[in-house]
């Protein structure tokens, strides 16, 4: 499993469909915004003192989740691919 982190958000590049994924937040933002890569349904998750947010993963293998913090030039974003779990 590879981890991405150069955007100040650390998470694996893939996540199990129907499971969860942990996202660590480097900047001092108080929330992370999550949506599927083509959806206008944005969910905001609170960033606790440990700076790791557990995000539910939709049961849609092959879809992409966008995870972001901040806005404007300070916006940081990563993408996580949803993969099928082993039967």
């Amino acid at each position, binding site marked *: 499993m590879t*981890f991405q*982190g*150069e*955007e*100040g958000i*650390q998470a694996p590049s893939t996540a199990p469909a129907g499971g969860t994924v942990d996202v*660590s937040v*480097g*900047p*001092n*933002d*108080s*929330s992370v*915004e999550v*949506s599927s*890569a*083509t*959806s*206008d*349904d*944005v969910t*905001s998750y*609170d*960033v*606790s*003192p*440990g*700076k790791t947010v557990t995000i539910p993963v939709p049961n849609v293998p092959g879809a992409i989740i*966008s995870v*972001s913090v*901040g*806005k*404007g*030039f*300070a*916006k*940081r*974003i990563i993408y996580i691919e949803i993969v099928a779990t082993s039967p």
Partner: protein
Amino acid sequence: MHNHLTRALISASVSLAALTAQTYEVVPAAYTANDAISFNWVAGASKNVRQQTLVGATHLSSMVGRSIVAIELRRSAKNEAFAGGSSSLDVKLSISPNAPLDCSSTYANNPGPAPINVFNGTVTFPTSPPVIGPSVSWTTNNVVRIPFTTPFPYSGGTLCIDVIGSPIAGQEVNWWMADAEFEDLPGSTNDLGGGCGNYGGPTSQWANVQRRSLVAGGTARMFAYGTPNGLAIAAIGQKSAVGTPLSLLGFNSPPGCELFLSTLDMLEVRIFAPDTQTPWRGGRADVELKIPGIAAALGLSLTTQWLDWTQSTSSNAIEWTIAPAIPSLDMALVDGDPQEATGNVTVHLAHVIRFEHQ
């Protein structure tokens, strides 16, 4: 006579050495040896970042009359190695006109009138092996050290540390997290419903309030998604227990659009700024309100509901309440992009910093 002179010279040398001896001060002092509860990234490690830290005078009394010659950030404890690299930093120190609870989100408002450029150059992020904690030593492998080329004489007051960092191509530091203290003082939010329109998914929840921004002395942050380049109106007031259909107020709104405000205390007009990175989310509008760091602000409740003027639709209304205690950290951090005039203010979260002074 000779022995008397020798003793006098030795005594004078010891006194001189004591006066110029390097000493260290860790802020907050509680984390001199042990890891704090949180972490925060460091300016310039992987992205262009500006970070201003305000350090309250209560932390620095032992440094009055002395000169600061370096600052250090220590890695956060984690069973994870941090790969090293380098970044380019420009660091200015000054005495801020603002106490930490009065910290402004506008960068230009926080430094004092005569900032001193104490460092401009390359800083090393060491490759740091895993440190489980709770103790984390200030050894070379655990520390990002900024040695000043110009000492900063500290004579009291709130210290403003203004850092602009840029990554160096080929030497980027993708994940090197510095220790930070985080006072857990969240406010609270309550979604009242009333949303409609093309954004926010099936429940039309296209507005948000960051509950951890609801801290006395901090900056309440609320935002909404809507028609890109369209007019966004944030209405703030007291909540209504019953929703009033927007159509009854003269708007050509679809069913489900209901106003959950009984008073209109504030109107903030914005534009839903288009987002080229995530265009599917819609444009985004933000409102930030400075919360006074006073007891009268504690527990204050208001409700925010947005109007997407283009669609004549309402967002979900969110009742928000300020946290019941004032942060005692006496530090503030403004974190953001150097191209922006403003950054994200936290008065509950700031780096653990070690000052070297003489």
